[in-house]
């Protein structure tokens, strides 16, 4: 026996939290659904067919929730912190490089390469930082559509920045190598690292621009960015003669700890939303 109220109740339960918790919007959508159902019934369809037709005309409620999240978009301050860290880091390297260039210690080609590669790598770290933040908040407090939209938007922009700066930086590096080492590409660990970062920036860009990518996969991709950049940037110090201000064992230990933390974060990304929720605290960050 068809029961409209039961169908409506099930439909309400199936809605994403952001729609379900907005009582006014819920009433508006429900009113629409009832009206659509009644019109279908008047047209002579059976109750079940009328309900299915009304429901299908509503469309994918996940998409509706995403659109509503855009309407009431808010400032997501973790994105601004990541952007600030990026500006400070790249600004510092830029200032240092200009100083070295002024002192005649570095040539323009290599100086530009250093600044661009730093911008690309730090952008990837910024994505990793946002990913880590998202994983923690999602597990501890739950994750709203608005946060997802803000996370997606910030990471899409950072991915594009990382892709462009790393691509141009690698090209300039190859040019510099051609002039100074007599070859464009030598499969040096740093070059391989740069190539891996470049490839992962492409993956991230696609991941954050496509609405089809599952949210948990995006989180994992963001965390993996941390692993790739950390290994690509600092890993060569363990096996090559590149000069670093700290000793190889220290770099190795710090890198290992960092990678283990990322593995833990990837595991946390697999947990259901709010799995480690602290009761009595609202999810608003």
């Amino acid at each position, binding site marked *: 026996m068809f029961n409209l109220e039961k169908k409506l109740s099930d439909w309400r339960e199936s809605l994403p939290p952001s729609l379900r918790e907005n009582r*006014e*919007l819920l*009433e*508006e*959508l429900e*009113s*629409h659904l*009832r*009206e*659509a159902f009644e*019109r279908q019934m008047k047209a002579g369809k059976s109750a079940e067919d009328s309900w299915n037709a009304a429901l299908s*005309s*509503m*469309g*994918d*409620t996940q*998409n*509706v929730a995403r*659109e*509503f999240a*855009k*309407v*009431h978009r808010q400032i997501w301050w973790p994105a601004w912190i990541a952007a600030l860290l990026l500006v400070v880091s790249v600004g510092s390297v830029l200032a240092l490089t200009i100083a070295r260039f002024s002192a005649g210690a570095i040539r323009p080609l290599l100086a530009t390469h250093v600044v661009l590669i730093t911008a690309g790598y730090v952008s990837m770290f910024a994505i990793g930082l946002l990913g880590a933040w998202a994983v923690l908040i999602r597990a501890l407090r739950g994750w709203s559509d608005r946060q997802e939209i803000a996370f997606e938007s910030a990471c899409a922009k950072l991915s594009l920045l990382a892709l462009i700066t790393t691509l141009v930086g690698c090209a300039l590096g190859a040019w510099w190598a051609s002039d100074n080492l007599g070859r464009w590409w030598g499969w040096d660990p740093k070059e391989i690292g740069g190539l891996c970062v470049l490839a992962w920036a492409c993956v991230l860009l696609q991941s954050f621009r496509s609405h089809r990518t599952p949210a948990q996969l995006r989180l994992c991709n963001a965390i993996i960015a941390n692993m790739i950049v950390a290994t690509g940037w600092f890993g060569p110090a363990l096996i090559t003669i590149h000069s670093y201000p700290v000793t190889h064992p220290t770099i190795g230990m710090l890198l290992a700890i960092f990678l283990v933390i990322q593995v833990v974060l990837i595991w946390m990304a697999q947990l259901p939303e709010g799995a480690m929720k602290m009761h009595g605290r609202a999810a608003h960050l």
Partner: protein
Amino acid sequence: MIGDMKLGKDLVAASAVPLILAILEEGESYGYAIIARVRELSDGKMRWTDGMLYPVLHRLEAQGSIRARWKVAESGRRRKYYAINREGRKTLEEHKAQWQIVHGALASIWR
């Protein structure tokens, strides 16, 4: 927002705001009636997904182009009615001017 017609997604999305504002200029209305009016105006060739109309309505409300109020319909059910305001009429005029430019250009080249 797209239905079964051959209209491109971008075109339907771009025409949503002027269509909604133009329909509301005829008089206040509510979600279901707006969708029905769009279908009527396009001879059934434009079919919006119902759920996607509301984000546009809410965005227009947030932008101050339309206002909304709840009323009890003859059926006894509460409905949210939307009405265009001065800001919305201004926005509609801008959209009309832009669409007329597009229409004029296409009409000239396809003559």
